[in-house]
């Protein structure tokens, strides 16, 4: 029983291994990039739109609205990063319908890489919005004693993102593998539907949590207004 797609080796040359995680990630990247390129070759702004363009518009405006609901006002700056996170994880779990496919997010390396991207993106957007001094000052809010706790919370948030996504995807594929050896007829199909649902929810959760972390790093810290009391 395979613990992760890391163990499916397609090709090996010395230390360089082409395992299942890498190959399926490349396949997903190719599908996303080539599909978008094909659809956006002839964009129309009139009333006549192809259905693929409408599909992409629904997806992009939906993601922008969700980002705005979380609290990031200028969502067009963040929709590239957060939208890519959501689409990659969602497509990775949606393609489990295809036989022979294992989601690359079922390997801790992929989810750790995605969590590290979020870890780098939060200070990046924070410094872009508030400048280096303003962002670093947010670590000593509300008092200086909180500095180690803030740093620890950054690291543990990243770890939690990686392990949450990994655990959910791996448990989906493992349940399926176990059930196929016990009751191979109908029950694995029900569990695979459940796996699809949790995959979509986890994609949404991953990108929404990344949006919340970026929102907390970029929010404007207004000084508290003084109360003017006329005596």
């Amino acid at each position, binding site marked *: *029983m395979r*613990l992760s797609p890391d163990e499916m080796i397609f090709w090996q040359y010395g230390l360089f291994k082409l395992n299942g995680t890498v190959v399926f990630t490349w396949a997903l990247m190719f599908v996303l990039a080539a599909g978008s390129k094909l659809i956006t070759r002839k964009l129309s702004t009139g009333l006549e739109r192809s259905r693929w363009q409408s599909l992409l518009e629904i997806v992009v405006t939906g993601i922008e609205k*969700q980002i705005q*609901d979380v609290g990031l006002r200028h969502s067009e700056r963040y929709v590239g990063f957060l939208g890519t996170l959501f689409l990659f994880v969602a497509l990775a779990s949606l393609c489990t319908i295809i036989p022979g496919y294992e989601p690359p997010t079922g390997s801790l390396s992929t989810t750790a890489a995605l969590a590290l991207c979020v870890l780098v993106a939060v200070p990046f957007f924070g410094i872009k919005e508030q400048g280096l001094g303003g962002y670093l000052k947010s670590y000593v809010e509300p008092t200086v004693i909180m500095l180690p706790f803030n740093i620890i919370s950054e690291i543990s948030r990243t770890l*939690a993102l990686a*392990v*949450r996504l*990994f*655990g*959910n995807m*791996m*448990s989906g594929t*493992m349940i399926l593998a176990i059930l196929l050896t016990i009751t191979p007829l109908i029950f694995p199909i029900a569990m695979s539907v459940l796996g699809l649902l949790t995959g979509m*929810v*986890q994609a*949404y*959760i991953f990108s*929404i*949590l990344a949006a*919340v972390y970026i929102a907390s790093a970029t929010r404007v810290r207004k000084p508290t207004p003084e109360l003017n009391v006329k005596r």
Partner: protein
Amino acid sequence: MDSITLIAIASIVTAGLTIALGSIGPALGEGRAVATALSSLAQQPDSATTITRTLFVGLAMIESIAIYCFVVSMILIFANPFWNHVIAQAAGK
């Protein structure tokens, strides 16, 4: 009892106990979270989208505790370094 048997017993028992005890807390927490979300939805149906989104985010954070326990359990069964070590020693002898 030699070390191979001891490691096997400890790993199996701990793996079962980890996931058994580790899923009690998150299950209770998620039940309370959904119950509170349902009562606030009944009180304010207009903010249904905000409540639902916050509920999902909260459920994911609670669920991750159970996921940590599951990952530890899987590591003990499938990727156990102590087991691999003693097996390699026994195979080498």
